[in-house]
């Protein structure tokens, strides 16, 4: 739910968003931009003198399954889109996590919020991130100008690819009002290969072996014993999971060769499509870490270095993206944690806990980042509490 303490602006159109942003800019007021408001707490909040809710811009504008393209207003709920595309046998390829429970939030995430946070699920390793499926947009910059970029077709290199800049900008550059994304046919079936009792390093090696085989692995996750022992799995052993998706004959053939290739890692168990879907929904939502008071970090590192994160930092880890994404419950001092992660070639974002969420940047990159921010939002009208590294 949105704060009742501050005023909430609820525009019904992009034109109204233009007016509200321009007005705020002229009055020297800052706005916190929210879709469903489910990620408000990340980094201790986005700040602002008023909330600007995109919930009133929730229409699907065009969905042409045969073109693999969907255009909608930014405030459309993810769950609505997921149902819509599923009815056509399609999917949002980047498997967006909702993270509502993980973040202790209520309500439902929107497409705009998901793109603004560039949130991608387990399939990221194969299909790419939210940013890879973000084709075009209309948005209101901090200058109060309505701009469009990209297009409504799947292939386009006309002008700068500002979609990439919007993805992961957490609403600090512009307020997305309308977006176009690429969709894909949903896999006909899936199965998951489970390995048990591996330590983090062995699991890393098993995932690398699977990802380097011609098996088109679409998910590779590892739950160490502590994470696997929590609900919902409540297992006794660490679980390492490899997902295969596609046409039945292909999935079966790939599973057979992969199980053979993974023999050195012990007994493999195959779980069917229904259980596989359940399992990966838990991975996507980081279900094992939903109930814990410790700060939660989302750490991106080169996949082969994933297992070193917990080794270097302690705390409790959960690995996705073949080791490239580490969710870490840790009470380590933030600066020390970030330094250790940088040492491994990655960066850390604080998803749950007090303090700045984003990796601080330095030198020319920090200055360039500040100039990019100023290009879109020179007055600091949008999400003033979120500083993207500079």
């Amino acid at each position: 739910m949105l704060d009742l303490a501050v005023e909430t602006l609820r525009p019904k159109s992009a034109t109204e968003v233009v007016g509200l942003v321009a007005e705020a800019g002229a009055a020297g007021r800052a706005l916190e931009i929210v879709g469903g408001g489910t990620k408000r707490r990340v980094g201790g909040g986005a700040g602002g003198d008023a909330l600007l809710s995109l919930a009133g811009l929730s229409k699907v504008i065009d969905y042409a399954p045969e073109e693999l393209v969907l255009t909608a207003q930014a405030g459309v709920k993810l769950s609505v889109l997921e149902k819509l595309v599923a009815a056509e046998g399609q999917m949002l390829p980047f498997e967006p996590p909702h993270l509502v429970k993980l973040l202790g939030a209520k309500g439902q995430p929107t497409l705009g919020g998901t793109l603004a946070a560039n949130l991608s699920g387990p399939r990221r390793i194969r299909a790419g991130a939210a940013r890879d499926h973000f084709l075009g947009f209309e948005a209101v910059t901090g200058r109060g100008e309505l701009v469009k970029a990209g297009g409504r077709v799947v292939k386009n290199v006309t002008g700068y690819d500002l979609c990439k800049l919007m993805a992961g900008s957490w609403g600090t550059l512009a307020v997305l009002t309308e977006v176009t994304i690429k969709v894909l046919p949903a896999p006909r079936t899936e199965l998951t290969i489970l390995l048990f009792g591996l330590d983090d390093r062995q699991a890393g090696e098993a995932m690398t072996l699977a990802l380097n085989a011609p098996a088109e692995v679409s998910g590779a996750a590892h739950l160490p014993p502590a994470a696997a022992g929590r609900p919902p799995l409540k297992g006794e052993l660490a679980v390492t999971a490899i997902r295969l998706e596609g046409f039945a004959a292909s999935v079966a053939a790939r599973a057979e060769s992969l199980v053979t290739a993974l023999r050195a890692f012990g007994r493999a168990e195959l779980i069917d499509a229904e259980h596989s879907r359940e399992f990966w929904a838990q991975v996507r939502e980081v279900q094992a870490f939903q109930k814990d008071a410790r700060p939660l970090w989302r750490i991106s590192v080169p996949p082969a270095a994933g297992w070193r994160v917990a080794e270097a930092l302690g705390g409790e880890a959960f690995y996705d993206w073949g080791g490239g994404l580490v969710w870490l419950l840790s009470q380590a001092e933030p600066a020390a944690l970030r330094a250790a992660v940088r040492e491994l070639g990655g960066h850390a974002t604080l998803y749950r806990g007090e303090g700045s969420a984003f990796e601080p940047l330095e030198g020319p990159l920090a200055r360039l980042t500040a100039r990019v921010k100023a290009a879109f939002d020179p007055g600091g009208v949008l999400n003033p509490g979120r500083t993207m590294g500079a």
Partner: protein
Amino acid sequence: MPAPDPALLAKKAQIVRALQRLVPGEGVVGDPAGLVPFQSDGLSAYRQTPLAVVLPETTAQVSAVLAWCQENGVKVVPRGAGTSLSGGALPLQDGVVLGMAKFNRILEVDYANRCAVVQPGVTNLAITGAVEADGFYYAPDPSSQVACTIGGNVAENSGGVHCLKYGLTTNNLLGCEIVLMSGEVVRLGGKGFDAAGYDLLGVVTGSEGLLGVVTEVTVRLLTKPQTARAMLLGFGSVEAAGATVGDVIAAGVIPAGLEMMDRPAILAAEAFVGAGYPTDAEALLIVELDGPEAECAELSAQVAELARARGATTVRTSESEAERLAFWAGRKAAFPAVGRISPDYYCMDGTIPRRQLPHVLTQITQMGLEYGLGVANVFHAGDGNLHPLILYDADKPGQLEAAEAFGADILKLCVAVGGVLTGEHGVGVEKRDLMGEMFNETDLACQQRVKCAFDPDLLLNPGKVFPRLHRCAELGRVHVHRGAVAFPELPRF
């Protein structure tokens, strides 16, 4: 192009000497004969001799050259292999060409992280060449892949026939090092996913050399599929071929490649390479399926059935690797094949919603009649990226102009039916003046402010992409409320 600055032209000797101090040895070309090879890129209708060419070998030299040029107000045009089809590397009379050809080393292959770190002058195909023995490859495969460099691919966000399934350059990069016009060196991304801060890697990719000079690239490597099969599907009409493409995708099949050729393109290709294409067909689809043998077998049977249901007159599936390559030979040679039937051709590049294909092809044929010029169409049918090849003769007065006007009309049509000006070749100088068809002044100003954040003096590759150059100060005006600007610590320009 921006009018040359006579003061800079007059200082040519000084500029060459200064650059020679920064890049000693054979690193600077200033003599008229030596400059000739750099006059144009793949869009050879445009030519311009630059002031000088500098060929650095290290990031430090690139940094020193750019910093010196910025300090002295000298414009810089970065260049890879010079294969751009939109004039991205077209020199400026009063500018320096920064050639990156000497950055030709593969620095690291990291299979554990499925990536390679390479210098920008490495050719696209050489990356795959370095890793294919180990079962890996780099996916984007522009037709010029034997010559084009990865640095140029980053600048243009290049595609290729396999990008339907595997994405464009932007989807296959993990990181890069760039040098800003100020000489500052910035690393974007690395070997992990989704770098910290804004996705500047994503913005630099496809920025056509306007934002920074790429000095190192980290690319994703993919595992080679176990098998690949190609299919030739001939149809009596473009509509039937187009409908089959829709049916294939509706059946949940995303082929590795899905190409269409119209009758003039089929005939030209067949006459050139004898690939066995059906010369009675009005439209030909080439469908490539890859993955495990079981998948290729199942899907090729399914695609064949869908094609027959739409009345396909030819349905052939490759039975061997040699046959698969033969099926592709005609398509890959389509441009030179068209070059045999016409003294000159002009390759266009627009994207349309696929359902608009029959309408757009009919219109293009009609326009060809009106302009009195022939046209052959090859088409990345899976993603709607159209490549009409306009046939003309540069020796006949007025034909080049007619071909350019015809091309502009095609691109306007692409935009009018809901598509875009360029699918994979970039805007460059070629489509610069058409940007207004897609974007209004506010949209373009927003893009140009990004340019200002990277290159406030507009010295890097000016005259490309944007129809009008605005001074950054003019774009950067900020509304000031009661004399106070919020966030005074933020830099402004």
